[in-house]
């Protein structure tokens, strides 16, 4: 049947996309790149579940796809918060509050000489 052939090709393309995204997930080079790759893996997984719903004719898979999209969104937001505030003492304070005593320089929470860059 024509539809099943198209679905098979779609499965193949999505699997290839997942493999390419895993390449980026492994190679990095930094944590933000991996977070973006995880985000895309979430989208591809939603696509896989939608294809499964098409192939099996079970509409309940659609609920799983929507739920996975929700969880992937929350995970991305959580990762973003972690990335922004993972350096100790770098949490933003309201403007105008005095700096902690003994820190004349803008503190990154790292020992002196360590550049404030992502690994």
């Amino acid at each position: 049947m024509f539809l099943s052939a198209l679905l098979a090709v779609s499965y193949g393309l999505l699997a290839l996309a997942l493999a390419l995204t895993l390449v980026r997930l492994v190679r990095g080079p930094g944590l933000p790149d991996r977070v973006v790759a995880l985000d895309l893996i979430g989208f591809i997984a939603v696509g896989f579940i939608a294809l499964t719903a098409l192939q099996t004719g079970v509409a309940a898979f659609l609920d799983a796809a929507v739920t996975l999209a929700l969880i992937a969104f929350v995970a991305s937001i959580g990762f973003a918060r972690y990335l922004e505030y993972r350096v100790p003492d770098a949490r933003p304070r309201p403007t105008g509050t005095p700096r902690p005593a003994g820190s004349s320089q803008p503190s990154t929470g790292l020992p002196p000489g360590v550049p404030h860059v992502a690994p």
Partner: protein
Amino acid sequence: MSPLLSTLAGVLALVGAIFALIAALGIVRFPDLLTRMHAATKAGTLGAGLLLLAVAVAFADAGVAARAAAGIAFLVLTAPVASHAIGRAAYFCGVRLWERTEVDELAGHYDPETHVLDPAEAELHERHEPVA
């Protein structure tokens, strides 16, 4: 399922899978984080959205179509928020931009400690503070 609807659903699924593949190609081939994010968010959202649309077309049922529409709306609403949060966090992490980047309009405008844009945003914050 009528042949017309099933063919339409198959073509939509195929196009969605192709867009997902384009997003994955972009995330592997592009040179820095922000360009990768540009590929992943836009093409990825379109790919997943088209696949959900294919489900809605194939089932031809109001309940399924409503759920698929809710899923598409959710994807379209949340993907920009998530990628903005990641891009902002990555900028504060000091992610290196591509060496051929022409302009970085944020350079020097963010307070590295408070993560607040100056001066417009700082004034906005000060306006809400009680008068000392």
